[in-house]
């Protein structure tokens, strides 16, 4: 899901940097205003957690690999706005030190994995959670549902960004200039493996950790509940 440089036109990559900039500002504002100072180390821990969990590649149908992101779990713990900064920093270190995801494409990758994913997943979590408390089974199931939907919505946005390239940017004879795959290719190529395997991995991770922490450290979820009030 880490778009490398060269797949998006500079124009689209730039547009997604510009789209992400105000979202980062809002994320930092949410951290300043709503994240309890004592939870700053938790945010750092979760950012590193996201970095590490993305290193665990799992085989996907079609001969490719994928990974969980952890963004929805982070959103449930510290709120989706703070999650955006946590995941963005993991993506930035991946791009700058390890060449995982492009640098021009960092705006796009942040938009997809650090904004779309935690917000989509967190909204589903909120809808499914109802009045469940952290130690209830429903809480963990809602978290798992959020993880599943979050990573799949992000995968769909990636597929759309990639698949728009040959439509938007091609030579007069139709030869694509950037990502050469059309929406008819990118959407099934991204969605089938994510719907079947990567989504399940994200659901198990998000639901599993939420169940464990909900049972043994329910106090950890207090900030996540306050984050959007």
């Amino acid at each position, binding site marked *: 899901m880490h778009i490398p440089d060269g797949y998006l036109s500079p124009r689209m990559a730039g547009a997604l940097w510009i789209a992400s900039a105000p979202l980062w500002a809002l994320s930092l504002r949410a951290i300043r205003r709503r994240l309890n100072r004592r939870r700053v180390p938790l945010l750092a*821990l979760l950012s590193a957690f996201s970095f590490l969990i993305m290193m665990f590649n799992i085989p996907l149908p079609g001969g*490719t690999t994928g990974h969980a992101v952890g963004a929805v779990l982070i959103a449930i713990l510290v709120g989706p706005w703070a999650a955006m900064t946590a995941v963005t920093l993991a993506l930035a270190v991946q791009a700058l030190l390890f060449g995982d995801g492009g640098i021009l494409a960092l705006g796009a990758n942040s938009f997809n994995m650090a904004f779309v994913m935690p917000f989509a997943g967190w909204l589903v979590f909120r809808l499914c959670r109802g009045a469940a408390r952290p130690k209830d089974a429903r809480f963990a199931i809602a978290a798992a549902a959020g993880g599943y939907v979050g990573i799949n919505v992000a995968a769909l946005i990636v597929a759309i960004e990639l698949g728009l390239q040959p439509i938007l940017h091609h030579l007069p004879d139709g030869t694509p200039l950037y990502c*050469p795959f059309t929406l008819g290719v990118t959407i099934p190529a991204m969605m089938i493996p994510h719907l079947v395997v990567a989504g399940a991995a994200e659901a198990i991770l998000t639901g599993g950790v939420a169940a464990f922490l909900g049972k043994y450290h329910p106090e950890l979820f207090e900030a996540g509940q306050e984050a959007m009030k």
Partner: protein
Amino acid sequence: MIYRRGWIVLLVLAILTPLGIIAAGGAWGEWDLDGVRARVGFAPDGMRESTAGGADRPLQEYTVPGLDKGFFHEGLGTILSALLGAGFTALIAFALARTVKGGGIH
């Protein structure tokens, strides 16, 4: 250190990261120019131009320069990459969050 058990979990994850590179094949749509050429028969012009001169990053693909001889070396390089990357990520997140909350990073 608060969240001590959480940091221990991260340390265990970092040590287990060599398991994460066993799976065959890369991610879909993350191929280099040769990979694209192998799949569609050509490398698109814009893609070639915007990746030209793009040097490898310091620890490209989670490998440590010099640690590339055999499975043991590669595993060690992956663990070192994981520790460095996760440590660096946590430090930046901590410093940034402390800074925006005011009162400095100490």
